[in-house]
């Protein structure tokens, strides 16, 4: 380094970039430095200068609606919320013993779970970079605990590999990576790797492959204590006279590939499924309850919106009181509508043709979740599985283990199915009893001697049949994004839509909150102009 000249510190550099290129460049640079993360939480909205008492009606008491109501009221608006259900939270929902649910078609289930056990039918895990949600959890006193997302010791099952026998994730992943490392190393030796690396760099790369792939001195992935330290031992290290470990046999590579382990490994790489993840202590609906503590007094429950109209003076919302009966019309100057598109597309409005087309253009997904209560934690006691997921190519997709009360005696609830796509439609079309039987039949592949023996009771939620949403969440594709997204999110005179469907973080609670903040910020600006 030249004397008298210093490399700028990171902060100096960021400051300079901020001055030169503005916030976008600053953000991009921060991303490069690894400072900014995935969610674009701008901080709580600044709604200063609101005309006191200007009125806003919010449709839907899910997270988007309650956040909008909370922030708008704080800014000085006069706010009320209409909610179809008799509870706040929307899809932020938890089922516990005694809860009764009736799905479309009429099937009714009463949850039998023991005290303390629960199923989160909707959202169940929170990425560490979903800043908006984490911000409001902290603000509203919602306690979070780790959600065990990645468990090396859980299983991967594929009906087409290993004769249908499940294998531990770590063994399959170790063998996949070990084989990749050995093959790449050979390719370097044979000069068949098309690379710009210098000879020296190639040596370094080979050494890296040896380290990462658990290869031996000869760059072979072989049965030995080194490979076993990743994939698991035949006999693990012990103490005393017979303490020496025994290495385990490697799997045949073709079976490893057939198991689909690469897809499992890729799943955990995704930015939204990387550890650390969180869950609220006691059930996901603690978040909805946390929001409701702030805005419950503003909510009219059991209100089924049937008509949404606006004119030059304001917005009028017609709703049916589902308990007392009768039709009521509510008026306000502005409206934040968070009603899911599946339902909104069937409500009479005088929104523009383009907006209406956008509302009708976005299909919803179809998840099915099934909670199974078991007499004891055989996955922990017999198989050393503490949280995490075992994946299968059968329709249930996975079995996921509880992330709290480890080592506890007594009943525990595991997630016996999380089906989507064809499996979601198929399981959803079954009766609740048939769903439980399918979950037991498919899930017992992981726990053959314990699954049915310890089963006590179960409950299933097929999101298509949930009366207040009729689907799980919005499913955009590139075509619909291009054609309809801007139209959907655009403020149309006095009405703005919000919710996960009005975001690029679809299906996540974070998306609904980010959408809500953006929507009320624009609505506030519009209100100031009025």
């Amino acid at each position, binding site marked *: 380094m030249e004397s008298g000249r210093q490399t700028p510190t990171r902060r100096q550099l960021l400051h300079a970039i901020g001055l030169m290129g503005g916030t976008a460049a600053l953000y991009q640079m921060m991303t490069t430095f690894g400072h900014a993360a995935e969610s674009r939480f701008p901080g709580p909205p600044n709604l200063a200068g609101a005309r006191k008492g200007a009125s806003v009606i919010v449709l839907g008491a899910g997270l988007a609606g309650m956040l909008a109501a909370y922030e708008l009221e704080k800014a000085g608006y006069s706010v009320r919320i209409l909610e*179809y259900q008799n509870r706040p939270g929307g899809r932020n929902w938890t089922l516990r013993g005694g809860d009764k649910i009736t799905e479309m078609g009429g099937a009714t289930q009463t949850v039998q779970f023991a005290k303390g056990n629960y199923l989160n039918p909707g959202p169940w895990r929170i990425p560490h970079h979903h800043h908006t949600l984490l911000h409001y959890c902290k603000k509203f006193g919602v306690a979070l605990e780790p959600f065990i997302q990645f468990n090396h010791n859980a299983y991967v099952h594929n009906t087409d590999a290993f004769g249908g026998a499940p294998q531990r994730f770590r063994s399959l992943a170790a063998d996949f990576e070990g084989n990749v490392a050995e093959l790449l190393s050979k390719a370097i030796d044979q000069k068949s790797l098309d690379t710009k690396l210098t000879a020296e760099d190639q040596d370094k790369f080979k050494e890296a492959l040896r380290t990462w792939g658990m290869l031996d001195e000869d760059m072979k992935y072989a049965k030995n204590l080194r490979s076993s330290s990743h994939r698991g031992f035949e006999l693990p290290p012990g103490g005393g006279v017979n303490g020496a470990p025994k290495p385990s046999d490697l799997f045949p590579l073709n079976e490893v590939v057939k198991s689909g382990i690469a897809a499992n490994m890729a799943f955990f790489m995704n930015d939204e499924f990387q550890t650390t993840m969180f869950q609220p202590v006691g059930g996901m609906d603690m978040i909805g309850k946390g929001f409701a503590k702030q805005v419950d007094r503003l909510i009219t429950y059991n209100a089924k919106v049937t008509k949404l109209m606006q004119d030059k003076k304001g917005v009028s919302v017609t709703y049916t009181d589902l308990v007392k009966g009768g039709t009521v019309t509510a008026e306000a100057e502005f409206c934040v509508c968070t009603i899911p598109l599946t339902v909104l597309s069937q409500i009479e409005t005088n929104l523009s043709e383009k907006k209406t087309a956008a509302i009708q253009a976005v299909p919803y997904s179809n998840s099915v979740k099934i909670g199974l209560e078991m007499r004891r934690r055989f996955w922990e006691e017999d198989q050393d599985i503490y949280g995490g*997921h075992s994946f299968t*190519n059968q329709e249930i997709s996975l079995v996921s283990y509880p992330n709290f009360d480890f080592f506890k005696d007594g009943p525990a609830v595991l997630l016996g199915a999380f089906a989507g796509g*064809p499996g979601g439609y*198929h399981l959803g*079309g079954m009766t609740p009893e048939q769903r439980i039987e399918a979950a037991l039949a498919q899930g017992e592949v992981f726990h053959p001697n314990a699954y049915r023996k310890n089963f006590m009771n179960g409950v299933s939620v097929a999101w*298509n049949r949930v009366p207040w949403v009729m689907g799980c969440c919005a499913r955009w594709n*590139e075509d*619909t994004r291009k054609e309809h997204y801007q139209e959907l999110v655009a403020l149309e005179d006095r009405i703005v839509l919000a919710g996960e469907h009005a975001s690029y973080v679809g299906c996540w609670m974070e998306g609904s909150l980010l959408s809500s903040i953006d929507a009320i910020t624009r609505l506030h600006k519009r209100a100031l102009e009025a």
Partner: protein
Amino acid sequence: MTRLKTLALAALVSAFALPAFADEPGPGGSKPPKPKDGADIYRMYCQVCHMADGKGAVGAGAFPALASNARIGTAQYAIYMIEKGKGGMPYFSDSLSPAQVADVVNYIRTHFGNDYKDAVTAKDVEPMAKPPTQARR
């Protein structure tokens, strides 16, 4: 590329490469049972919303009945709704082949009190069967 290959590729892409939705189970569930005929397709794809008796259901909105629904007298309407979707009805162009769509349309139009004699084939479906571009979010 043949349509089946395209479908397989789309399934592969959505199942393996880009699992980013919160409601996506991840890499599991990639081998659901194959429906044998129109009745099977109805049971495995349609009855979750339109119900086993084809009478639909009512919640905050409604799933329309297929039983005694005059609209499906026009086979092209049924095909269009399955391929393109609208409102609460998702599109199935990325999950059912034209032959499967024809099978289930024929099944619906001859059950639940419907008795339309003009059967359709995969050829009638193909012009409308273009899966949308896949997207991450």
